[in-house]
């Protein structure tokens, strides 16, 4: 996929290189203007516009660029999904600047998980762009560093590498779904509860479950909720639902308004804990004076955790209760009393198990009586805690 009006020469070079490597190529033109090389497309922008419910003439004469982009993207998605469903494509590669990358990655996210997707983008490293390009998709993003403008040796080298990468990627054996009925578990985690997650995973695997982990940093956990709704999982261990409090305060791990709800909607059992729920991560440029005065912990150069205030903890407990009370399936909440992650260690500035109780008590008050809330005299990373989580799983997961 490329906009052949501005990137025609580069796209044709890419096509030629992929062909030399032994793959067939279908070149889709997603440009909204006519360029000298637009005729070289295998799927013309006219076809794309029509599949999007418009015509190229209409697109060209329109002054509403956002609307035109949406139409072209819709058309490209229609065509690509059709080709994929018919087994006519085995991978997809896009090359572009801002507009091309936005459109092509929208198409990629609409294609099935596992189909190789490579985006060569000159704007991969711009602030915030990668988040929009990748989202919850299994997209591979290659920074071209140089402008995709004029086929110099440097850009040729980048395109050559991209061609080799995508041709090699399509050789990957496809996803084999060999799912044991009733045994697929989704689990959220973060670095600061890694030990607990490993122990729980091992325990579940010994019990015949297959565990898929998701990073609870605001994207992986969102992807998990989507995959739960697609019916891919039979049970959930939600060790790190911090995305709920982050949604309330606008933190970087915000996992959207429906986090912690999919398992309940699907009626599958869930065991929930609290890693990271007592910390928030508003973007540094949005820090207020009050944020600056808070206790904090630097995870690394990029990540600083601020201690959540008691008010925020109460608000979070209410959100947890509201979400979990709606659940159609069994729920167990398991909370460690000596710190909710490896960050919560005696000596670390944000360690405050007493204040954590504000959340526990509010949650206990609000949860429906049939939802079990269990506390454990241990830290999240202690073996006893993982043991307690596993026991909870044994109680409510399919036997």
């Amino acid at each position, binding site marked *: 996929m490329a906009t052949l009006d501005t990137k025609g020469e580069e796209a044709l070079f890419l096509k030629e290189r992929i062909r030399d490597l032994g793959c067939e190529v279908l070149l889709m033109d997603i440009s909204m203007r006519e360029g000298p090389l637009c005729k070289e497309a295998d799927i013309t922008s006219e076809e794309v516009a029509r599949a999007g419910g418009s015509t190229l003439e209409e697109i060209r004469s329109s002054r509403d660029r956002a609307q035109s982009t949406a139409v072209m993207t819709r058309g490209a998605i229609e065509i690509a999904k059709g080709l994929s469903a018919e087994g006519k494509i085995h991978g997809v590669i896009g090359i572009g600047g801002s507009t091309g990358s936005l459109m092509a990655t929208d198409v990629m996210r609409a294609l099935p998980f596992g189909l190789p997707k490579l985006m060569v983008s000159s704007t991969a490293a711009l602030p915030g762009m990668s988040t929009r390009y990748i989202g919850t*998709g299994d997209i591979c993003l290659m920074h071209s560093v140089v*402008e995709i403008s004029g086929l110099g040796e440097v850009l040729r080298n980048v395109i050559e590498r991209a061609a080799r990468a995508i041709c090699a990627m399509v050789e*990957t054996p496809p996803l084999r779904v060999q799912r044991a009925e009733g045994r697929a578990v989704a689990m959220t985690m973060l670095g600061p509860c890694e030990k607990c997650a490993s122990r729980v*995973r091992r325990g579940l695997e010994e019990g015949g479950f297959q565990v898929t982990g998701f990073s609870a940093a605001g994207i992986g956990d969102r992807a998990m909720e989507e995959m739960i709704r697609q019916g891919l999982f039979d049970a959930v261990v939600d060790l790190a639902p911090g995305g709920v409090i982050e949604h309330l305060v606008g933190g970087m791990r915000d996992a959207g308004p429906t986090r912690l709800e999919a398992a309940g909607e699907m009626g599958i059992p869930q065991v929930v804990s609290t890693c990271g729920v007592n910390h928030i991560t508003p973007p540094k440029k949005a820090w207020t004076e009050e944020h600056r005065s808070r206790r904090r912990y630097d995870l690394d150069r990029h990540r600083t955790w601020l201690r959540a205030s008691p008010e925020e903890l109460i608000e979070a407990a209410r959100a947890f209760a509201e979400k979990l009370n709606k659940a159609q399936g069994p729920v167990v909440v398991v909370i460690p009393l000596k710190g909710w992650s490896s960050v919560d260690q005696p000596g670390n500035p944000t360690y405050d198990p007493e204040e954590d109780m504000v959340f526990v008590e509010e949650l206990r008050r609000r949860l429906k009586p049939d939802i079990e809330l269990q506390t454990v005299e241990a830290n999240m990373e202690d073996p006893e805690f993982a043991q307690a989580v596993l026991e909870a799983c044994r109680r409510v997961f399919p036997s």
Partner: protein
Amino acid sequence: MSSEESGGKSLLIVATLDTKGEHAAYVRDCVRSLGVKPVLMDVGILGEPSIPADIAKEEVASAAGYDLKGLIKARDRASCVRAIAEGAVIVANRLLEDGRIHGVFGMGGGTGTTVATRVMRSLPFGLPKVMVSTVASRDVREFVGTKDVVMFHSVADLLGMNEFVKLILGQACRAVCGMMQRGIELPKGKPMVAVSAYGANSDCALHAQSFLEAKGYEMVAFHANGCGGMAMEEFVEQGLVVGVLDLTLHEIADEMFGGYSKGIGPMRLEAGGVPRVVAPGGLDNAAFTPSCPMPDLLKGRKVCYYDVRFCVRMGPQEMRAFARIVGEKLRKVKAPTYVLIPRRGWSEFDREGMEFFDPQADQVFVDELKKVLGDAVPVEEMDVHISDPAFARRAVEVLDEMIRSGGIR
């Protein structure tokens, strides 16, 4: 057997072997089956590696002069990460110098991505770099920076082995091994000239391209968007270009006011070693978006709307400040430098007849710049707009002369 003896290529695998040992083993076996020799570097801290490393974590930290065991005992996680990252950079660069690696592969979560991409950013453009990351979908600017790092989003966490994880790791292994195949090293063809460009000053770059090609050079363009300008400076440092046409200084304005193309580092305009012609393209305005909002102190200025971006005209006060910044930088550069000023406008927004047209404000920049530079750097003024082919022709002519003679001063 070394990779030279085997005649094959070697891939450096950077991973925390205490937590991601299982995944590293999968990658190791996968690349081996693709005919590439794996070199496993352990950058784990917490625990013992679950599979043997070719380069142990203690060895990694000690390359940078740290005692990892002592740091672990002190429970100072941040220092441990720093030690392992600094050491990993040193070890990787040594391996590359010795010709013992031909690509880098990383996998990890937050910490693993931080360490492995720091290694990748320290290695030259062109060397294949693939990072499988659980946080690829976050803002990757700090991870990728100015380098050609390929980010694979793992979607599922790298925790335990399952079909999802195997698929992504398998694709990534094939991608990096594919990229490492023979014959795609950067060729040493025509001498290359780096050109800074951006949307509102792209005609100038296009003219420059044809003049450069006529003189036997090849142009490599960098988008002056906060990241591209810095990538250009790194190309200069890496010795990949013979000269620079720095025709777009728009980043300096955005940097000052937190605009859309902010984010340049101190190195901007300062990489030496090759001749450079500088022109103030796009310095007539700063650009803002909803997420990079205009500061209040610019309220009331002339504004020009683009798409989600809008540009604000810079006045005499800013021009004086820009001249001092640019002048101080150029005085420091250890290479022949030449400033070329178009008197009739510096971007598509300030052509004659347009609202931003304001040669008087521009002249403040020129006068102040001459004052700061003194005799150190020549400043030439031309009575044209920056998009006039005559301007690009003169810029190329001056650069070509400097490249041939090794200087004009």
